[in-house]
């Protein structure tokens, strides 16, 4: 009854092609953004900002980047954390070496640097695909982290490559409270998510999907594979790079190359599997799920242990976390290969008919 598009007539092409064609979706989005921009800063505590909300947004952005590459263009990548590392270190170096560069410009430059590196490591995708490509992206993962550790210039000669980020100056005002950082991250993420949403329904996005579904067929109907695939790598790495810059500047403040490990790449991959491969919204759902699950298990497991009188050490808890992660991945792939986003879609279908399904 509430969620029904009956009576919403489109009288122009512009209205028909808009991003959210259903009025309730638009209202829902506006309400959500209002809550995120106004409600959350008023209500949430400092812990929430710095431990949950900021990492959630940053990882959602990284997952979005990977989703563009894997979910839309069909090129599996196991190196997303490395591209985040490129973004983080590039932003740091731009701030360090370019006099008076605004922080947002250095974030964009960081994204572009990551995009360049992404194109470089995307080149093999022209010759190889599938698993071979997945393994090839592992080369990016190991090589980039190694470079960042070993070339002292990149981390301004700090020991073992640790960098401490510069102050966040925005229009002459220093952002140092978690709320301000949260708002900055939120604005960037919302902007880039809307950009992605638009991009995947453009010619480029459709070309990506054609390549994903079958690249030989795509090239037969006139999609040029090389620019399409490389663009997917570039855009994906751009998103990951910006996410990495935000990760360093707004979340941790001090990062080391080894922090951007293979484990983190897998985490981002899990986010898109659980959230939904090939879905913008899925990236957010997946990021929330993967970040909240450990917190939930941390709280729930000792509780259950107390309930049954089992002694759980912290090592056991971390093992159970890994185990549950693995089991969930398999469970989702078997039961709902399209992830949480698909569940959301099903809920919407149901909601259209509710409360009179017949």
């Amino acid at each position: 009854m509430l969620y029904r598009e009956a009576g919403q007539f489109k009288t122009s092409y512009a209205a028909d092609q808009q991003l959210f064609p259903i009025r309730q979706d638009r209202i829902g989005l506006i309400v959500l953004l209002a809550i995120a921009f106004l409600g959350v800063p008023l209500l949430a505590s400092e812990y929430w900002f710095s431990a949950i909300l900021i990492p959630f947004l940053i990882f959602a952005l990284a997952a979005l980047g990977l989703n563009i590459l894997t979910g839309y263009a069909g090129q599996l990548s196991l190196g997303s954390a490395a591209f985040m590392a490129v973004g983080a270190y590039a932003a740091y170096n731009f701030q360090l070496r370019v006099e008076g560069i605004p922080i947002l410009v250095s974030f964009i430059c960081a994204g572009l640097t990551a995009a360049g590196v992404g194109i470089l490591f995307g080149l093999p995708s022209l010759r190889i695909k599938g698993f071979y490509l997945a393994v090839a992206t592992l080369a990016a993962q190991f090589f980039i982290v190694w470079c960042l550790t070993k070339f002292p210039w990149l981390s301004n000669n700090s020991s073992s490559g640790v960098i401490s980020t510069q102050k966040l100056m925005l229009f002459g005002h220093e952002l140092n409270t978690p709320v301000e950082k949260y708002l900055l991250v939120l604005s960037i993420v919302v902007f880039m998510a809307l950009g992605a949403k638009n991009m995947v329904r453009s010619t480029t996005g459709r070309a990506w999907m054609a390549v994903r579904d079958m690249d030989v067929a795509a090239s037969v109907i006139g999609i040029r594979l090389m620019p399409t695939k490389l663009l997917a790598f570039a855009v994906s790495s751009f998103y990951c790079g910006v996410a990495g810059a935000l990760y360093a500047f707004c979340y941790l403040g001090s990062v080391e190359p080894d922090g951007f490990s293979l484990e983190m790449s897998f985490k981002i991959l899990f986010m898109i599997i659980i959230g939904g491969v090939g879905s913008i919204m899925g990236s957010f759902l997946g990021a929330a799920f993967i970040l909240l699950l450990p917190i939930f298990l941390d709280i729930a497991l000792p509780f259950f242990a107390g309930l049954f009188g089992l002694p759980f050490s912290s090592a056991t808890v971390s093992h159970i976390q890994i185990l549950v992660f693995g089991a969930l991945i398999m469970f989702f792939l078997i039961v709902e290969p399209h992830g949480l986003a698909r569940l959301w879609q099903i809920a919407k279908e149901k909601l259209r008919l509710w409360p009179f399904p017949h």
Partner: protein
Amino acid sequence: MNFFFEVLIGGLLSGVMYALVALGFVLIYKASGVFNFAQGAMVYLAALSVVGVMEWGAPLWLAVILAFTIMTLFGIATEKFVLRKLVNQPPIALFMATIGLAFFIEGLAPMVFGSEPRALELGIVDEPIPWILDNWNMVISKFDLVAAGVASLLVATLALFFQYTRIGRALRAVADDHQAALSIGIPLQNIWAIVWGVAGFVALVAGMMWGARNGVQFALTFTALKALPVLILGGFTSVPGAIVGGLIIGASEKLAEIYIPPVMQDLFGGNFGGIEGWFPYVLALLFLLVRPEGLFGERHIDRV
């Protein structure tokens, strides 16, 4: 020059160890088209169960048999509860499921058998062979030689098994074409269970070798990462490819580790050790640009 050969031989011998792990990948990929990322975790599980059972007081031979039983049961369970439900999904989905499986094992195994690093005693000492040390002044580990011997034996056994037994022939048929194999009455699911059992056996051998060498610890799961470049170099579908790829990767990685960092140090200054981590990948990647299907892989023909 002696030093060069010492490094080369050491590299070749450690390459054999990589090949041991890569073999498990190839077996499963050949028979079921699944790229089993969990092979490294299976190596860890196998080594852990040997050590764990021995800790409960069992002798080595009994522990090995029990570990083999565990691996086989585990393989069959994987096939039954995970992979069978994913039939007809794209290969990438299966691949991601095996990543999930790897995490599952990495969480489960230490919970059952304990996570602290332990030594595995096989009765082979890891020390240089005195005869070679005296005559050629080269340090070649006795253990590495034994490992190479075991690997060759394993490969020979597998080759014979594939070539001359009924099951082996069925396995090759399934690897060639699932549907054709089904249509002539080969029970696909039994075959897959057997393949996972065999892969578990290979993981057990690899796990005992690696475990005896480096201790049974979580780092064993990273053996999978060592085996991946071997696979892309050798081709996913070829047993000889895994061996040759392993040798190439092992030798070149050790040589690179010795000879490249000094050159880079002269150029840029600083310390450039640890090339081993990525060198095999870059090597395999460059190789792929020339031959996308690997050394011995089957040429892939796309049909629309």
